[in-house]
């Protein structure tokens, strides 16, 4: 059972008072404002919220892609610095929202997957590449293709394969299935759950699909305009018991398109 900090067990990930700003003096965007949350080992923690609310920015600060933040980020009790070294990336990997931008356009799938292994001086690279391709449901025929020869879903599987090949403990997943059709989404969600069980992984999952969040997560935080407005368990989400009006609107909108409901949508600032 996932337990947050209350059991006295030390969380694997602890983010405290995270603040991220973009731009300079005259035009500062305060994208993330005092965000704090803990994630226990083996837990899946969800982040949902409006487009532009800062979800990707939180993950990018955690993964070391953006060094410009304040607050503290701890993993396994160790405070992380602004710049991360190789050992960090062996432990923590990120899957990006955008499968188009995250794969090098002129590298084959084989090279995309081999390179991180070479950087980390791993052995049996050839076997690792073929195993991970099987694990994500891509056969050997895809190994020497270039990203432009793959469909959106096939690219996302390559992106997941690249994150998995280093066998990390923590995966930061930014909308990993939003570019996928539902059958591949089911395969990828099952794959992530299976890998989590087999390898004891811990996930932070960003998604705007509440059904996906409910399926995958133990707890979630709802973000709006850079802040966490509410943290709730998935049981509370399933029972439609959010405390905040913003979360209730999110639940209503996730029931499907409704022209009259669209007219009643409010913006919460």
């Amino acid at each position, binding site marked *: 059972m996932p337990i947050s900090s209350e059991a006295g067990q030390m969380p694997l990930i602890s983010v405290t008072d995270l603040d991220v700003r*973009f731009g300079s003096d005259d*035009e500062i*965007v305060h994208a993330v404002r005092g965000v704090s949350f803990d994630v226990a080992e083996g837990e899946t923690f969800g982040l*949902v*919220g*409006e*487009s*532009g*609310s800062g979800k*990707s920015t939180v993950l990018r600060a955690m993964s070391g892609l953006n060094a410009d933040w304040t607050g503290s980020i701890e993993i396994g009790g160790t405070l992380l610095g602004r710049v991360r070294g190789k050992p960090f990336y062996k432990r923590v990997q990120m899957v990006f*929202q*955008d499968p*188009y*931008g995250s794969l090098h356009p002129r590298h084959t799938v084989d090279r995309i997957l081999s390179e991180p292994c070479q950087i980390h001086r791993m052995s049996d690279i050839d076997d690792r590449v073929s195993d991970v391709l099987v694990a994500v449901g891509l056969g050997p*025929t895809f190994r020497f293709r270039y990203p432009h*020869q793959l*469909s*959106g*879903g*096939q690219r996302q599987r390559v992106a997941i394969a690249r994150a998995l090949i280093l066998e990390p403990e923590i995966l930061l997943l930014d*909308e990993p299935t*939003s*570019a*996928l*059709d*539902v*059958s*591949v*989404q*089911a*395969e990828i*969600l*099952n794959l992530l*759950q299976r890998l989590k069980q087999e390898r004891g992984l811990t996930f932070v999952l960003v998604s*705007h*699909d*509440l*059904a*996906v969040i*409910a*399926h*995958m997560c133990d707890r979630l935080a709802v973000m709006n305009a850079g802040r966490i407005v509410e943290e709730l368990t998935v049981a509370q*989400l*399933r029972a439609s018991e959010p405390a905040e009006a913003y979360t209730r*609107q*999110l639940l209503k*909108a*996730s029931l*499907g*398109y*409704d*022209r009259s*409901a*669209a*007219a009643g*949508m409010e*913006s919460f600032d």
Partner: protein
Amino acid sequence: MIGANGGKDGALLTVEDLSVRFHTRTGIVDAVRNISFSVGREKVGIVGESGSGKTMTGRSVLRLIRPPGEITAKRMEFDGHDLLTLSEKQMRDIRGDRISMVMQDPKYSLNPVMTIGEQIAEAYRVHTGASFRDAKARAAEMLAAVKIRDPERVLSLYPHEVSGGMGQRIMIAMMLIPDPDLMIADEPTSALDVTVQMQVLAIIDDLVTQRGMGLMFVSHDLNLVASFCDRVIIMYAGQIVETCKASELDQAKHPYTRGLLNSLPRLDREPGPLPVLERQESWKTEPGVDAYFK
């Protein structure tokens, strides 16, 4: 009711026997195989698994398939124009003016070295002949219409500085500029949260119901397509395997469509492994299910 063969007042787009083929080093990839469909002044959803040919179908209509890709069709007609025989120049006019496409990868359709404001203003100026100043003023309004907060700030950003969902809304705003007769939207709202998605779709919906625009809506979100569209085309391995009324999608008959529906996670169902599709070779050769010929 609108039939599979077109809108009630005649089809805007009629496609017969369209195929898209890629000649690659390892052989021929049949991305789209002999499909026929039409779109009237209505919302037609195209769903199907990854790689089933949805994007290639959308791009074919605008003849945006790059070599080694090759399009063949018996007929591809848009509002009286034979899209198969138009010159490249005439095709450009159609693309800029009458048919808009929102691409699946919005940020890659934007110019990385121009600000969002410059790009929108330029597109507006080219289209309307407005002055640059007027165009700039209109650009902010267009972003506000797609529910972007603080549009003035966003106008000064470069494409790499906007979030995924903002990029999609910027593309939609730009594609609405020419007031198109037909919009082809490829996963246009996949990165939007559900509330913003609903508001952006309402804008597109109003253009269809009030101004008679036709919409080809490519999406993998079956619940969304069922609630938003009028008709649905379901694709598998480059073919159309089923067409039905969107409101009757939950009663779809084809085992592939049923498989897609069953693979959805649901808020009202406890987690556990999701059923995944067991694909059948016979789906590639059997005739599809067409709810309109029953």
